[in-house]
């Protein structure tokens, strides 16, 4: 049995007596996995990150990071975690090299010793090592921050929305880097508001309004999808949206990119002809209605819609 890298039991957090940021959070992260915290902005991801990185105390509940208590043993936890915040948080007036040197010393770590770990990333930014960090491009900044967060060879790496505002190519690169970090036996906890990135994780927790609405490997979410999902393309999405409000079938309809997704909770043999008849009756032009495998985003929508 592998050790739990992180174990969270019954964590609650309320800000200034009003806003409930986290409600009864329970989750375990296993050693060596890439764990995704997936949910929209304001769902409580950052609060949970602040608590896990010991920067914030929970109101109640228990958090263990490699069996150390996040409230009491926070100093020991800080030795073994690396943290990449959501916004660029290095010194913009220090050069790339100076930033790395600085954090290496802060972590009482030796750059040479851990070079093997960061080398693949460092190689990409070392040509700019005398450039001030503030003058780097977004992707480069991100890589430098990652080097600084890894320089002490942490056991767990926390990444707070590392791909927000990053273009698709850099995002893909970034996820590839995370894979390689994981191979170094570093547990990775990453948050993202983007459902399409969820499949890159070993397991994900969907989080909404301060609550965890499901923890599973992405594929399990997809397997657990209750509805029968169909997709089709419509000539006029806006007119379709209006018409769908009157649909008599038990279904959940939403646009999905340039397509429309309908999750039916019916016997499809009867429902599908009924649905087509309904569309024709309301003068909708559309292309073939085909079944499709749900994405994590479809799962999120289903879970949230059903819990309401």
């Amino acid at each position: 049995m592998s050790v739990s890298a992180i174990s969270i039991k019954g964590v609650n957090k309320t800000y200034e007596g009003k806003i409930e940021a986290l409600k009864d959070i329970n989750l375990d992260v296993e050693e060596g996995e890439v764990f995704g915290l997936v949910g929209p902005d304001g769902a409580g991801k950052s609060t949970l990150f602040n608590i896990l990185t010991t920067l914030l105390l929970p109101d109640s509940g228990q958090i263990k990071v490699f069996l150390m208590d996040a409230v009491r043993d926070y100093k020991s936890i800080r030795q073994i975690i690396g943290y990449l915040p959501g916004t660029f948080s290095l010194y913009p007036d220090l050069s790339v090299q100076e930033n790395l040197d600085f954090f290496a010393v802060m972590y009482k770590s030796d750059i040479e010793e851990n070079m093997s770990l960061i080398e693949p990333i460092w190689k990409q930014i070392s040509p700019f090592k005398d450039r001030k960090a503030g003058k780097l491009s977004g992707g480069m900044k991100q890589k430098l921050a990652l080097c600084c967060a890894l320089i002490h060879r942490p056991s767990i790496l926390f990444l707070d929305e590392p791909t927000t505002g990053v273009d698709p190519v850099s995002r893909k690169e970034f996820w590839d880097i995370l894979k390689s970090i994981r191979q170094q036996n570093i547990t990775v906890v990453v948050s993202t508001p983007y459902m399409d990135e969820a499949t890159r994780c070993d397991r994900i927790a969907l989080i909404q309004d301060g609550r965890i609405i499901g923890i599973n490997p992405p594929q399990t979410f997809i397997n657990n999808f209750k509805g029968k999902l169909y997709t089709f393309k419509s000539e006029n999405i806006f007119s379709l949206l209006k018409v769908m409000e009157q649909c008599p079938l038990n279904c959940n309809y939403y646009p999905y990119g340039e397509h429309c997704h309908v999750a039916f909770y019916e016997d499809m043999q009867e429902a599908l002809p009924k649905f087509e008849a309904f569309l024709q009756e309301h003068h909708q032009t559309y292309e073939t209605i085909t079944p499709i495998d749900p994405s994590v985003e479809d799962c999120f929508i289903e879970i949230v819609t059903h819990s309401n």
Partner: protein
Amino acid sequence: MFSIEANQLTKQFGTFTAVDHISFQVNEGEIFGFLGANGAGKTTAIKMMSGLLLPTSGTAMIAGFDIRTQSKLIKRNIGYMSQKFSLYGDLTVFENMQLFGTIYKIPRKELKDRIMNSLRELDMEKQADTLVDSIPLGWKQKLAFATAILHRPKIVFLDEPTSGVDPIVRREFWKLIYLAASKGVTILVTTHYMDEAEYCNRISIMSEGQIKLIGTPDELKKKMEVNTINDVFVKFVKR
């Protein structure tokens, strides 16, 4: 007549060419996705199209006005919304809309009616006197969009409007965009998120200051022989 018509639009900063002879047209009521990697020149192009920056060469007609000579008229006829800056958190919903409405010189009496109408569409009438800071992010985004179209612009520029918003609210947001487009408002959206790009009627992908690809999402996917716009983007930039 096109709503946006760029003709060899170019901007150089010293020796660096940020926007390199781009030409494209957007129809009235079209939802146009303006994509590109960081630093591809999107922001510069939008600044020129909204009359904030003069081009080095080339020109563009925005809602029928020349960006070189009629920037004042352009500003009156466009709306702008970005996730970074949209509304004042310490003003109420109503006060925010009133403020922007007044800036665009909407007559006072009419302004109140328009605000109330728009809040009714958003189903936010009860929140009129709530501070913007205390409403959920998704609602803020919808409100910001409603505010950006309060003066009935012909074109709205949306700069990463819904990144980080939950999938359900995001769909509600797009419903508002479709509604506006169905009334003839032209929408130009920038985004890094390709699922958002798929909501657009047509998209363009910029790289190194040039528009390298343009077409409907389906056309581009067929052309690049992939299944998603994300793959289109990745495949295209890798080349």
